[in-house]
């Protein structure tokens, strides 16, 4: 017995030491040697306590499917021209369909063969006869659609991660969720507005030729020739700060896209002291740019980002170096952010903000203070109640309680769990419920003493009989906590974590630690009567 007591005592001591070592960086990081602070992280605070931004973005995957079909339409037209097949029209007819209209049976057969060879993922549908023409319909297979959508979300996640990395946030979280959603957590950012504009931008960079022969004013009124589109260029007047939108008509055909970029940097124009973004193309892009500029000297080329014209400069000469510049009326920060999104690449489909929770650092600080205060007051009240009710035994329970709090925090640090405001509430709640195990044991001991058993026997019987009850009672709460962990999000998950950890710690302290203390007094100090 006495040897086992020594072992058990040592075990408790070991736990205390481990807890101390792991908690030290949380409370006194600066006073510790580096190796210590490096091997144990301080308790990680949730966004609601340290401030920061929680975003859920929805990737509009249907748009990715549409744009894939649009590009198939473009490719098909090119192929048909290549093969000299005479066709009337190629167009996207719905979200997942495209139609090719030809004049005769022979061309129809050629189209079938061509599509079969080049786009095996398209399913041919039944023919619809429309006034002497033959219309061939194709649709994307469900499997193909699913894979386009999946790819779009993965690609978006990758791009967003690149942007966040360049934005410079410590410990960001980016996760893919179900339903094409992406969760982003940015702790401690101080300019949420900038983060939103940086992450929410699709950043699709396109170069299109300006349709010089179309009068933009006519186009605004709705007279738009086929094959062209109306876009707007935003101009900011430096002095007055007013924004004007200038209509620009461009040809639909995209001559180049931002996919061919290799780098984008902010530069300052020395003449006007205005920032601009210098872009470099990769080798394919440089060749393409060379061809495009050579063929269009003297014409205007519009530089378009997300359907807004940034500038539409005149091509003065062939540009073969593979670099260009985007100037517009930006502030330096806007230019920096534009360079970031261009470097990180464009999103495969637009994203929509579905959920946004931003907590300022001052609220988080207040929450921590209030949480700590309520934990302190709660603990003191419970400690007083226990001593008042159970005397010396109450003191044993209180030692277990304080150790419990200590172990909870240590486990949070060791498991790298996140502490949130509901998590603090969970700890406070655990303090109240943790004494339950001791209460159960003490009540049993009292019952045993009442029927005349000596202290030692009563203690043993009390612990033994209460044990099963304690386990049964706590498993249910643990069950509820685990389910909460499964279904919960963010802060609520924190509650599930502290509640579970709290239950486990309280079982250990109430059953094991307090037993060691009792045994010590009964065996070593030869205490004959229990103060309970």
């Amino acid at each position, binding site marked *: 017995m006495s040897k086992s007591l020594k072992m058990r005592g040592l075990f408790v001591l070991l736990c205390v030491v481990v807890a101390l070592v792991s908690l030290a960086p949380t409370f006194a990081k600066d006073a510790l040697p580096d190796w210590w602070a490096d091997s144990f992280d301080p308790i990680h605070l949730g966004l609601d306590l340290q401030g920061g931004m929680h975003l859920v973005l929805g990737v509009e995957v249907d748009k990715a499917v549409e744009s894939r079909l649009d590009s198939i339409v473009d490719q098909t037209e090119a192929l048909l021209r290549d093969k000299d097949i005479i066709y009337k029209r190629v167009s996207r007819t719905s979200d997942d369909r495209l139609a090719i209209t030809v004049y005769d049976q022979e061309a129809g057969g050629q189209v079938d063969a061509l599509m079969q060879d080049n786009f095996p993922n398209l399913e041919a549908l039944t023919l619809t006869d429309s006034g002497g023409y033959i219309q061939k319909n194709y649709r994307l297979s469900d499997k193909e659609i699913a894979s386009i959508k999946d790819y779009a979300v993965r690609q978006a996640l990758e791009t967003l991660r690149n942007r966040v990395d360049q934005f410079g946030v410590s410990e960001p979280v980016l996760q893919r969720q179900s339903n094409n959603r992406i969760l982003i957590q940015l702790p401690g950012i101080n300019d949420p*507005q900038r983060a939103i504009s940086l992450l929410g931008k699709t950043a699709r960079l396109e170069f299109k030729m300006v349709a010089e022969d179309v009068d933009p004013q006519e186009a605004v009124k709705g007279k738009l020739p086929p094959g062209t589109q109306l876009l707007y260029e935003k101009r900011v007047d430096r002095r007055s700060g007013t924004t004007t939108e200038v209509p620009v008509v461009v040809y639909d055909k995209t001559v180049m896209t931002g996919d061919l970029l290799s780098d984008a940097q902010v530069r300052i124009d020395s003449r006007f002291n205005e920032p601009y973004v210098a872009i470099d193309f990769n080798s394919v892009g440089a060749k393409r740019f060379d061809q495009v500029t050579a063929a269009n000297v003297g014409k205007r080329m519009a530089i378009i980002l997300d359907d807004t014209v940034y500038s539409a400069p005149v091509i003065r000469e062939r540009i073969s170096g593979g670099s260009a510049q985007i100037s517009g009326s930006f502030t330096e920060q806007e230019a920096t952010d534009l360079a970031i999104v261009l470097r990180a690449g464009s999103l495969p489909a637009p994203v929509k903000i579905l959920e946004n929770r931003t907590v300022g650092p001052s609220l988080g600080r207040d929450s921590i203070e209030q949480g700590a205060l309520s934990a302190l007051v709660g603990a003191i*009240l419970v400690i007083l*109640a226990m001593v008042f009710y159970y005397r010396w035994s109450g003191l044993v329970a209180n030692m277990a309680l304080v150790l419990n709090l200590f172990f909870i925090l240590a486990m949070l640090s060791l498991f790298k769990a996140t502490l949130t405001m*509901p998590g603090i509430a969970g700890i406070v*709640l655990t303090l109240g*419920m943790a004494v339950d195990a001791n209460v159960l044991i003490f009540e049993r001991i009292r019952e045993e003493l009442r029927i005349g058993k000596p202290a030692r026997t009563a203690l043993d019987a009390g612990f033994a009989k209460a044990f099963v009850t304690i386990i049964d*009672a706590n498993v249910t709460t643990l069950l509820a906590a685990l389910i909460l962990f499964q279904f919960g999000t963010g*802060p609520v998950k924190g509650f599930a974590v502290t509640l579970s950890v709290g239950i486990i710690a309280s079982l250990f302290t109430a059953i094991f630690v307090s037993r060691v203390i009792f045994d010590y007094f009964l065996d070593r100090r030869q205490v004959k009567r229990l103060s309970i």
Partner: protein
Amino acid sequence: MQIVKPDINIDFVGKRKLAMIISGILILIGLASLVVKGGPNYGIDFAGGTLVQVKFQETTKAARIKDALKQLDLGSIIVQQFGDQPNEFLIKAQNTSDELESLSQTVKTTLEKSYGEGKVDLRRAEMVGPQVGKDLRQKGLMAVVWAIVGILIYITWRFEFRFGMGALVATVHDVLITLGAFSLFNKEIDLPIIAAFLAIIGYSLNDTIIVCDRIRENMGKHSKDGLPSIVNRSINETLSRTILTSGTTLLVVFSLFVFGGGVIHNFAFAMLVGILIGTYSSIFVASPVILLWEERKGKGGQTAAATSGGGKNR
């Protein structure tokens, strides 16, 4: 010290008719309030919407804030005090917009025009889209349902089915009354409240199990007595523990309620109601249901009760 005398013998089981009436009334009041107010009062987590929390340097009134914001076209907005701070307010709008950031910024600038530059601190801004709100609502409901199912299974496995029934009825009873109290006091249900509900479920069961555990033990020891007398004896024997544990838990929850701040205020309120009701229900609801189940099955349950005591040895 003792609150409950060891030889106490209150006839809890005899008062079950009265308890049933009280429980019935409490549930009916809550349900009536829910019906009148057209369902639970969901916060923006579940209903979707926009929320901005601002702190002023001076104390102010909700009406004045509403006035200052009138020029912005925000649709119908609700301005309410945050926790018990006279200078901190929540501004809620039903509609969600992608441009939450610019919205909260506009609110700030507008308020600063009225209260002075630098006198308004933007503490929190939240936007939950309707789709996300619906998903969260569904998830929350699923969490509560699964918790109840899981617990029923556990109790049936560890005890017997009728104990599980007793625990189930008591749990649903507690959740219903807490839900009713929320509706009655016009408190909003948001994510942390679901956590509180699950904690209440766990806690209430904790209490119920301890009584059940004693019933099981006494069924072995005093098998000659009828089940009602065994149940009553078990409740009395565990009464001291029930009161003390509920007491310490109430102490900490009360501390949370008073000192925990606005973020956790409603959570603490739910826990206060839930623990009071949970304690009551483990004495007055769970055990009578076990008896009721027994009576319905007729006298046949008596032998089953006696033999099933072996279950605890696993």
